[in-house]
């Protein structure tokens, strides 16, 4: 059963690439060439691998956030807003607090987690107190978060002069790996002899990926092996039965949204502390939450599976971005491909039919061979 799902996902990815390839051919681009470029664009240099990981890290987390909510019977369209809120607050803490290294990022991450939890918790609260569908509230909260973040960036003590962005976080708050050392003389000397490491460390490699993996394991563990996970899932599957079993529905609904929000908030915080170092004015939604939904769906809402799913997603986006400068192919193809992959994943029945058809054909061939 589990193996089956995995195979379906693989076949879906393949079919998505095929259809993306067809779209490319229609526009006169060689799909093989294009996929080669994408593949090389991700794997041909350690630093591309780093970039892919960096690109995927926030998506692992927002993916887990959406997955977690799904598992508890909630639809978290609000990962985007929770991400925004988490990054805003992490930036505030990263800039205004003066703390020693190690402590500083931990405090900032926790602040991001809390902020996301608060933002998600609002939706949970409105649901359990007023019965308002979380789909509406999270859509609204996304926009509120966006404008609020923009509002805060313009707050005089926070705004960086001559920039439409906040001040950058203090160095003590960074979670980049070997950030100082990389550019120090000793580091440069060392890296000069070690090109792999040099390339790998060239991008802003940070602890985000480790945090994301730990969170994936933690959430998987919580869902599967703890009483907390048990009660959250019970509420998700059947409220009435959970209530009957003595589980507090309202509290658990709020809690579930808070945890989902916390993970998205953490995603925003790692992005700030590890990569962007600031909060910029947002002209539109950046899509971390929406892409996270796609990741969750590819991962079938399994927190652990969010890791490869996000890497796939990030890889497609990052690799796909190299199509334009090298062959002039439109990157929209990537979105179409991702959409098709998700569409096929949604239809295990179709994949099974295709697989059955293929194996029958193969069977016939074998028959004929005899």
């Amino acid at each position, binding site marked *: 059963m589990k193996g089956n799902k995995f195979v379906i996902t693989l076949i879906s990815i393949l079919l998505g690439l095929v259809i993306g390839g067809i*779209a490319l051919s229609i*526009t006169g681009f060689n799909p093989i060439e294009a996929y080669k470029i994408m593949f090389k664009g991700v794997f041909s240099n350690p630093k591309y691998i780093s970039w892919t990981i960096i690109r995927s890290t926030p998506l692992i987390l927002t993916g887990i956030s959406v997955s977690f909510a799904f598992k508890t019977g909630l*639809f978290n*369209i609000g990962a985007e807003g929770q991400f925004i809120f988490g990054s805003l607050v992490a930036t505030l803490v990263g800039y205004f607090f003066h703390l020693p290294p190690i402590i500083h990022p931990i405090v900032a991450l926790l602040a991001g987690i809390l902020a996301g939890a608060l933002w998600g918790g609002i939706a949970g609260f*409105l649901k359990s107190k*007023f*019965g*308002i*569908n979380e*789909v*509406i*509230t999270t*859509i*609204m*909260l996304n*926009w*509120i978060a966006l*404008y*609020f973040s*923009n*509002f805060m960036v*313009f707050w005089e003590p926070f705004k960086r002069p001559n920039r439409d962005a906040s001040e950058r976080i203090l160095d003590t708050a960074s979670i980049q790996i070997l950030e100082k050392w990389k550019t120090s003389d000793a580091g440069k000397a060392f890296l000069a002899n070690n090109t792999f490491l040099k390339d790998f460390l060239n991008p802003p490699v940070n602890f985000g990926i480790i945090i994301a993996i730990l969170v994936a394991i933690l959430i998987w563990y919580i869902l599967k092996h703890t009483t907390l996970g048990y009660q959250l899932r019970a509420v998700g599957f059947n409220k009435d039965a959970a209530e009957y079993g003595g589980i507090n529905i309202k509290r658990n609904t709020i809690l579930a949204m808070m945890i989902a929000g916390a993970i998205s908030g953490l995603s925003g915080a790692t992005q700030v502390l590890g990569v962007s170092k600031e909060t910029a004015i947002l002209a*539109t*939604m950046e899509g971390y939450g*929406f892409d996270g*939904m*796609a990741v969750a*769906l590819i991962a079938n809402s399994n927190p652990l599976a969010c890791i490869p799913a996000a890497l796939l997603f990030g890889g497609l986006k990052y690799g796909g971005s190299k199509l334009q400068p090298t062959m002039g192919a*439109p990157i*929209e*193809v*990537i*979105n*179409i491909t*991702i*959409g*098709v*992959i*998700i*569409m096929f*994943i*949604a*239809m295990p*029945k*179709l994949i099974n039919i295709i697989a059955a058809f293929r194996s029958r054909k193969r069977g016939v061939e074998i028959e004929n061979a005899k």
Partner: protein
Amino acid sequence: MKMLSDLGVIIGITLMYSAPLIYTSLGGVLSENAGVVNIGLEGMMTIGAFAGATVAYFTQNPWIGFLAAGIAGGLLALLHAIACVTFTADHVVSGIAINFIGPGLSIFLTKIFFDGAAMTIPLDLDNKIPRPLNGLFSSISPTNPTMARIVDALDSIFNQYATVYIALLLVLAVWFFLYKTKLGLRIRSVGEHPRAADTLGINVYRIKYLAVILSGVLAGFGGAAMSIAVISNYRAALISGQGFIALAAMIFGKWKPQGAMLGCLLFGAAQGLVVYLGSTSLNISSQLLAMLPYIITLVVLMGFVGEARGPKASGIPYEKE
């Protein structure tokens, strides 16, 4: 007196803002009443906006463009229907896929049809959807200043594109369709209790297909109401979030056409209010003002709407035994 024309402007903006949302949320109403959750409204709206602007440009006829938008939305919805109805896909998953495919395809095709540009070529005013009451009020130019104010206000309110009036008529039509006709009764039965419908010899799948495709057609219209009425071309960021707002409006309206319309109007009015407040001497930060429509929606939900239940079998793939 100034208040009167201000009010006129706010109402006018409300209608302009709401119209595309109304089409789309009516689409949501149809689909969900037949038991198919449609998160893909955004994608369907986008492809409608693209198709409407493109076809209207090449045919120089906005109505053909409008129809084409419906067809494009319907085709994308067909994909959703195939996935959800025939292949019992998870509706949310399929909807999200639609939201990647719709916008991706729209820009992709725009680049093909318009020499690599990411927007279609704007239509002339004459080639846009007409404004049936345009000139009606401005032709009366009363000398009395009060009367002039009133005429102004009326012009702000009623000098709208035909798409606005069609949207309002469609609310009535969808309500009639859903609650008064045979097909409507069957659609709702399929959304509530598909097995019951099945045992009465109703073809559940066909009904669902119909409702989902119609929902795409309406969402497509909604996109076109944006691209060939509110403005005059399609561009990448034209539809960014309206589909989700329409979805929210539908839930807000408790899955009913008239309720969904109210939800859209509320949202549009909040935007109108924001624009109005922004024009007054009140010194409110524009970022905070921009948050207002969303906050108002939440507050109204808390205070007046409360718990709502969708069609019972919504989101559950139906499989014959």
